Structures are given as C-alpha cells and as structure tokens.
C-alpha cells in the first residue's frame, strides 16, 4: 500500500465542502493561487489516526468534469492530473449533500469512474433528517462500491471515522469501476436516482424549512424590502457597533506614542516612530473593527445560504443594466475589498458579463474607503439623529454607498452598450438550503480577512507612510518657513495642486492622493502625517486629525473629497488584479481612465454646487 500524501475534497457546490475542510484542518490553512490562474487554492494539513500528516486540498465546487467556468476548469485539471505543478491527489474525498443525493451522485459517479482511491463523505446528515430524510450509508456504499462515512461538518461529527476511512482507502477494489466510467450523463443521472432511492430509508413529506423561509425572503415585494432593510442595518452597524473598539485602539496608540516620547531621546528616529509609524499606520488600524463587522455580515450571508437569494432578488435590477444576479455576489464582496470581489467574478460564465463586473467592481465602496469616509464624516457631519435609531452620520455613509452603487449601475449600462457590447447574459444558479452560519467557519473566515488587512497595514501602508514622512521631513525648513512648504512632498503637491485646485482640493489633499495610490486608506494616514509634521509644537501635535481638518477645510472641500473617493480609482492592488484577471493592460487602463474622469467631474460638481449653495 502506497502512503497517502495528498487528498482532495471534491464535490458539487453547496455540499458543505468548505465547512468539512475547516473542520478537518482547523486554522492550519494555506490560501494561495493555482499556478498561472487566479483560482484560489485552499490547502491545509490534517493528521491521520496513525499520526501521518496529509495535505488536504479543497477543490472548487463543480457539477461535472465538463467545465463551464474557470473554477470548474481547475477542478477538472487537478482531478484528471493535467495540472502542471500540482500533484495529482492520492485520494478523493467526495463530499455529497445527504439531502440532495439524487443530484450530487451524478458528479460523484463520474469521479468514482476515474478508478482512483475514493471515499464519500455523506455530509449534512442532520439537515437531511430535519427535512425528514433518513439514509442508509451501508446501502449507499454497496451500490457505489466505495466507503461512505456520514458526517456533519459544522458540528464536527463523523470526522474520526472519516479519517480512518481515508487511511484505509489505499486498498480499494477497482473491479466494478470501469462500468461506471462508461456511463453517459443521462445514464448517470438515472443510476443516481436509483441509487439514491435505494439508500433512502424513510422520506417523510415534512415541510422543508427553506421552502417556508423562501416564501418570505423571495416574495416579490417583501423580499426586496427585507434585503434593502438588511443592507441598511449592516451599514448602520458598521458605524455604531465599532465605536467602542475604535476608542480602545485609539487609546492604545496614544499610550504607545506617549511611551515612546517618554523613553526615547528626541531626534529623527523618535519622530519617525511617533509621526510616521504610530500616527500613520495607527490611523488605518483603527478601522479594523468596522472592516471586521462588514465582513462578518457578508460571511454570514454567504454561509447561511441567503446570499444566493439576494442574487435572485437583484437579478431583475442587474438585468436592466445588462448584468445578472450572479454579479451581485462579487459586487457585494467588493464592499469589503475589490480584490476578492474581482477574483469572485470567475464564477460568472459569460466573458462580457464578467469583464463588465470587473470594471465596475471598484465603484463599490471598499473597506479601504471606509477610513476616509469615517474621518471626513466624523469631522464635518454632526452626530445628530434624524429619526428613531437613525443617525445622520450613518445616513450620509449609506448615501455614499448608494452613490457608488448607482454610479456602478450607470457605468455598467454604458459599458454594456459600448466597450463590452454583446448579448445579455442569463442567470442560472442553485439556491443552497438555509442553515445557521457555523460560528467556527465564520471565525476562521473573519480571521483570514482581518489578517490580510493587518498585513497590508504592516507592509504597504507602513512603507507608504514612512516614505511620505521622509519626503515631508526633508529638506528641513528655514526658520520662519513651514516644514511642509519646504519639503520635497510640498513641492510635488504644489504641482498637483494646480490640477486639483479647481475642484476644491487644497494642497494637503493633493499631497495625500499620491501615497494613496498604494492603498486608498493611506489617504488618511497621509493627512495625519502631513498635519503632524506641520504642527509647530507638541501641543498641536497631540491634537487629533479631526480638529485639524475642521479648522483647515471648508465644507465644500470636504464634500468634494468624499465625492472623489466614491470613484477613487487609485489602488495599485486593484489595478494589478484587474490586469491579471483580464490578461493584459487594456482593461485596467480603461478602468483607471474612466474612474479618474468620473472622480474629477463629480468632485468638481459637488464642490461647485456646495459653494454656490453657500455651505
């Protein structure tokens, strides 16, 4: 018996594969890309009962080995051993949904027919029982000729028997497999139906929970109202719930600055740490709570099965602008970050549809813009209430998100009639059954997102902040001259300012936009650093960013700055991922060009209108 080194989880979408993967590997996961393509490769280590480690890979969900999307193409190539640089798995763990055997056994039989070591994880048996369905694993195993292990991934049930079965899977009898291999799709479907029927012990006509929920959530009138209500609650929560945590982080940063100032001798290094590192990076890290809250909602929507319903409801609206409900999921992810959003477009089969979604994804207000919005709203919009439980600040934030969405829809409409012209695409999507989002999977997902954000803060944002601080600090000002005026950065900003002045941007903003190319949220740390360097004395330096903005900016300037960031094309990572996903520079350049144009025009309109209104 050969040793088992690699195993792959494979199966239909919505079989609970990811939950099983999380349960088997815990937090020991590695997320990377498959070589040459941008499909996410999730792998992790699990330990067999014998103590031997195995590399477990979670393959993208597929309906068959005849792919109809880039995701499914990866699954096919890995399974068939055609993926260069990717080891062919020694063992397949086929994950099937116990409550949807008839459908999931179609693909399972195709995989069994390949004649490799295979076991079946009969997953979500608890949900099947909830729906009145009891299945006999032994009968299923006899019919398929491979071991079958019942599991409930989200409750960590059946994991030990599964690991034992994986260990013993090396000595399988392949004699009956070639028969399965020759079946055509209709034959496989027929045999799947018969096998499922034979394995079901009881099937009561118990009312399925999801049918009742769908009655409300997919209701032609109630459904959209509930969805928009939920989105509104999410954006209110992002502001309201995060407050105490933000206070804690701010307090920690202030304490750290105080500690450094008390213990280090005055000089270049101390200024670099307090003005550059702590002030700059700290002003971005402060937004971690808001990002975590937003991601928590998005992950819960995905894991509960509601996201597919949201796509259903949005399909009609998206169809007006030539897209489909499928684009809603990447676009909603783009509210957290355009990068996973653009990568999630791979599940869109139609190329024109996918391209349009990529081009408009940066218009969704990503979490990197949240710090910018939060600072400006905090400084210029009073914290009053305009109704029970509705704060004005939250309302303005919601308005900015809405502005981005409307802008994106209009952009899609224009793009679909010009550069991505083509036949309107369709919408075909399986609606998974509802379930409580498993806390463990939610926590793992949140941790991964938070870590990515912190890593950005520690690398890109740190670098950008330090470089900016150096540019701001040298050359040193003559006595009586402002440090910012004298610095290299000040000179760069003078040049940019000529272009930005008509739309109400002052020199500090022009300056902040340069390092903000690295990441949008750097705009905040750049402003913080600029004002910190410019402060003449310790007292002024200790003052926060917000009072300085209030003193230095007019309301029209602040509003124009917000409008700019609705479109804000400056994010190198987004441009890079768009280049990778579209295989060239053409589309990223189109994207950057139209976004810069819109940002300039709308910031201008906002500034001129606000000025004319005497705000």
């Amino acid at each position, binding site marked *: 018996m050969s040793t088992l080194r690699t195993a792959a989880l494979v199966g239909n979408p919505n079989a609970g594969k990811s939950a099983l993967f999380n349960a088997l590997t815990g937090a020991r996961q590695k997320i990377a890309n498959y070589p040459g393509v941008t499909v996410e490769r999730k792998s992790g280590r699990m330990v067999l009962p014998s103590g031997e480690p195995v590399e477990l890979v979670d393959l993208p969900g597929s309906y068959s080995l005849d792919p109809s999307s880039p995701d499914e193409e990866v699954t096919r190539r890995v399974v068939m051993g055609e993926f260069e640089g990717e080891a062919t798995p020694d063992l397949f763990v086929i994950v099937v949904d116990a409550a949807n055997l008839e*459908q999931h056994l179609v693909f399972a039989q195709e995989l069994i027919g390949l004649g490799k070591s295979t076991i079946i994880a009969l997953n979500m048996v608890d949900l099947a029982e909830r729906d009145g369905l009891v299945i006999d694993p032994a009968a299923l195993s006899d019919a398929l000729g491979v071991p079958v292990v019942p599991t409930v991934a989200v409750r960590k049930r059946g994991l030990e028997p599964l690991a034992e079965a994986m260990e013993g899977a090396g000595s399988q009898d392949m004699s009956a497999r070639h028969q399965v291999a020759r079946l055509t799709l209709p034959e496989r479907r027929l045999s799947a139906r018969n096998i499922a029927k034979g394995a079901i012990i009881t099937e009561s006509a118990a009312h399925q929970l999801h049918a009742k929920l769908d009655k409300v959530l997919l209701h032609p009138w109630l459904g959209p109202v509930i969805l928009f209500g939920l989105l509104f609650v999410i954006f209110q929560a992002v502001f309201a719930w995060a407050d105490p945590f933000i206070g804690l982080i701010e307090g920690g940063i202030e304490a750290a600055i105080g500690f450094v100032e008390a213990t280090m001798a005055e000089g270049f290094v101390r200024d670099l740490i307090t003005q550059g590192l702590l002030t700059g990076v700290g002003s971005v890290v402060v937004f971690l709570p808001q990002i975590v809250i937003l991601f928590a909602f998005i992950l819960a929507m995905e894991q509960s099965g509601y996201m597919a319903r949201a796509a259903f409801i949005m399909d009609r609206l998206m169809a007006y602008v030539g897209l489909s409900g499928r684009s809603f999921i990447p676009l909603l992810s783009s509210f957290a970050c355009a990068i996973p959003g653009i990568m999630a477009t791979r599940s869109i*089969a139609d190329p024109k549809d996918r391209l349009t979604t990529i081009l408009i994804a940066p218009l969704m207000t990503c979490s990197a813009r949240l710090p910018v919005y939060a600072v400006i709203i905090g400084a210029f919009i009073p914290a009053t209430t305009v109704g029970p439980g509705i704060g004005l600040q939250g309302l303005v934030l919601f308005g900015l998100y809405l502005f981005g969405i409307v802008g994106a829809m209009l952009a899609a409409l224009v793009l679909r009639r010009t550069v991505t012209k083509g036949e309107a*695409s369709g919408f*075909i999507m399986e609606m998974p059954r509802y379930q409580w989002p498993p806390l463990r999977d939610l926590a793992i997902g949140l941790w991964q997102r938070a870590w990515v954000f912190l890593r950005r803060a520690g690398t890109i944002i740190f670098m950008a902040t330090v470089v900016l601080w150096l540019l701001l600090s040298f050359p040193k000002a003559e006595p009586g001259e402002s440090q910012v005026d004298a610095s290299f950065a000040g000179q760069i900003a003078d040049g940019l300012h000529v272009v930005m002045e008509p739309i109400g941007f002052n020199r500090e903003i022009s300056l902040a936009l340069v390092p903000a190319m690295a990441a949008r949220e750097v705009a905040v740390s750049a402003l913080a650093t600029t004002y910190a360097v410019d402060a003449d004395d310790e007292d002024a330096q200790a003052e926060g960013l917000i009072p300085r903005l209030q003193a230095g900016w007019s309301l029209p300037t602040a509003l124009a700055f917000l409008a700019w960031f609705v479109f804000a094309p400056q994010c190198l990572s987004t441009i890079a991922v768009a280049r990778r996903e579209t295989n060239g520079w053409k589309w990223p350049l189109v994207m950057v060009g139209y976004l810069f144009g819109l940002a300039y025009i709308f910031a201008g309109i906002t500034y001129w209108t606000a000025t004319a209104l005497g705000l």
Partner: protein
Amino acid sequence: MTLDTLPPLTRAEITSVDWDTLAPDEAKRLRALGIDVGARVAIAHRGIFLGKDPIAIMIGRMTVALRRVHAQAMTVKEV
C-alpha cells in the same frame, strides 16, 4: 405549454427542450443541474415586484434560479 406559463407549485415533467435557442454554456449548466428532458419540476417563485423574471424552480430537493428565456425553451406537461 412552456415552463414559464406553468402555474406556481404545479408539478410537471419536461417533455422537450429547444437547446438551440440557449447559449451553449447555459445549456451545459442547465443539464448539469439535471434540468433536461424527463425531469420533474415545479415553479416555486416567479418575479420580483411586477416583473416575471427571474424564476425559481424546484427540481428534486433543489431550488434553482433561472430566467424566463430559459423556461420558454422548455415544453412541459402537468403530471
């Protein structure tokens, strides 16, 4: 009768599908989901607001969303 005109929650069998009117990739996806001649289906939900699109059909223990154009390509008979 085509699938899009089937009254809600009425069980029916797909008797023929005009695959040529559908995009090849969409036809492939529909077949992969088991939406093919001989499948038993019923309409669970239709439309948002006053529109008739999209449609959610029940097939086996699955609910699948699709557009009216797909349903129009499928002839069904009540069972």
